[in-house]
């Protein structure tokens, strides 16, 4: 009932652990996999070691999370061991990569491709570092230049372009990525925001601004997925604010084939994958659907 195919890869269910959540080591990824995720995404990895920002890096507000972790990374050279352990994964493992320019993306992609992950996600959308990503994801031509360069390196491995809702017209970016060789789209990354602690009269995050995730951004995710679905033929991992079965089904009806879960781990723990799957199944039974594949994009009819 829940099994599906995403960019040629079989998934036992459409839930996917989102990048940057838990994915710092292989064991946590395996834990998410063993807790019911249909696929898991590693934390985005860059060309060299990077500290990220000082704390506070994550804040929980009334309607979601706000984070500026700042793309910490040991650098791709340090994560060989994780790939060894990940061979035990019962579900597909998606590697996620970032860079400050096309050649950095290419350098990381080349090394990562050798490790043969099930897919490679190209993060052209992180809002939390001054120089990384964001710009690529906001402009069709620069986004496409990263995607086509990475695609050349990774060959047969399906490439997922991870997009930002900050783009003026996300469907244009998606189309450019598709034309440049992307096999799938992942949307959305976080939405730029800020919170101030009024007693301290200081921004809550050390980096001041951060990315909003969780329940507050779900309607933004639905809108972006809707637009992308109308613009491209390649499949979409939809994410943003999913923490129950209804949320997941909403994003699928908007056009997502698979469903990423990030902040949901905060709200529900790693049990969130099982919970979402069970709730989807219950709803599908009550509403006479036989396969999740039937749900994809049906709100467009």
């Amino acid at each position, binding site marked *: 009932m829940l099994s599906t195919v995403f960019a040629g890869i079989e998934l036992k269910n459409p839930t996917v652990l989102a990048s940057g959540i838990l994915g710092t080591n292989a064991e946590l990824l395996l834990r998410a996999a063993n807790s019911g995720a249909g696929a898991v995404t590693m934390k985005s990895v860059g060309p060299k070691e990077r500290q*990220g920002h000082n704390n506070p890096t*994550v804040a*929980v507000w009334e309607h979601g999370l706000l984070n500026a972790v700042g793309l910490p990374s040991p650098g791709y050279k*340090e994560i060989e061991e994780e790939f060894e352990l990940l061979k035990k994964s019962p579900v597909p493992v998606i590697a996620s990569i970032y860079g400050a320019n096309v050649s950095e993306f290419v350098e990381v992609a080349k090394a990562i491709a050798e490790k043969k992950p099930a897919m490679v996600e190209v993060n052209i959308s992180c809002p939390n570092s001054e120089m990384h990503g964001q710009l690529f994801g906001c402009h069709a031509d620069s986004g496409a230049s990263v995607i086509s360069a990475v695609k050349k390196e990774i060959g047969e491995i399906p490439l997922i372009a991870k997009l930002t809702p900050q783009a003026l017209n996300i469907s244009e970016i998606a189309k450019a990525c598709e034309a440049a060789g992307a096999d799938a789209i992942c949307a959305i990354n976080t939405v730029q925001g800020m919170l101030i*602690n009024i007693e301290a009269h200081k921004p809550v995050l050390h980096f001041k601004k951060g990315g909003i995730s969780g329940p507050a951004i779900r309607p933004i995710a639905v809108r972006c997925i809707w637009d992308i679905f109308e613009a491209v033929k390649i499949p979409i991992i939809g994410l943003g604010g999913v923490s129950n079965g209804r949320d997941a089904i909403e994003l699928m009806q908007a056009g997502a084939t698979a469903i990423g879960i990030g902040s949901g781990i905060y709200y529900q723990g790693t049990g969130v994958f099982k919970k979402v799957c069970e709730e989807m199944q219950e709803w599908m039974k009550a509403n006479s659907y036989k396969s999740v594949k039937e749900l994809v994009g049906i709100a467009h009819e």
Partner: protein
Amino acid sequence: MSDLPKICRIKKIVQETQSIRTFFLGIEIKAIPGQFVMAWLPGIDEKPFTLTAAGKEIAITVQERGKFTKALFAMKEGDSIGIRGPYGNGFDFKGVKKACIVAGGCGAAPVLLLAQELKKKKIGLKIILGARTGSECLFKKNLGKTGGLYITTDDGSEGEKGFTTTTLEKLLQKEKFDCVFACGPEIMLSKVFEICEKHKIKCQLNLERFMKCGGMGICGQCAINEWLVCRDGPVFRNEQLQKMPEFGKFARLKSTKKVSLQEYAQWRQ
């Protein structure tokens, strides 16, 4: 429901040893012994600290070490800091009739509330408290009130000269405990674990890792193998420790790079 830091005042500062102070804070938090809070100095950083008092007014007990704790030590009574929490599982003493606590250095902080709670519940308690030197023995008095106290110092300036773990070994030869609770340097903790395993005694060890989201359990920074110190811990038991190859060996730097505990300690310096 939000979980943002709340700004509160430093009500009282108590100098515990030369390098350790307790900060009493005007904020109410109900907590289980062994749970921690995240303390925020705006513009500087945010770090985890075990509660050494809970309820109407809380306290954290801090050793002066790096940039953050130096900034905290520069603060006066009446100044404000941000607090969120409590987080983590804390110690579990259900069913325990006789307990032993092993605390090394600043590790006396997480076990103070535990010892007081055990005393209140009239649970038999032996405490082994270790420090570099006598004057750095944290919570000597308070812990002494809660059970039989054994002190060990590296320099022999107070109590037995040597390690807490040697004393634990001796104690286990004579007595039986339902559980050993321990906190301190990880090298000490891994020795405690070894001893408990040998004697087939249950133990609960309070571990420490560098934290980012600190308590939310999402960023993966505090990972030890498949566990998150901030959400699954900070207290871990035998069954978990047995399957925790990184315990006593590896930790993650701020970049999330995995390094040996030695390199981790050097980075913290």
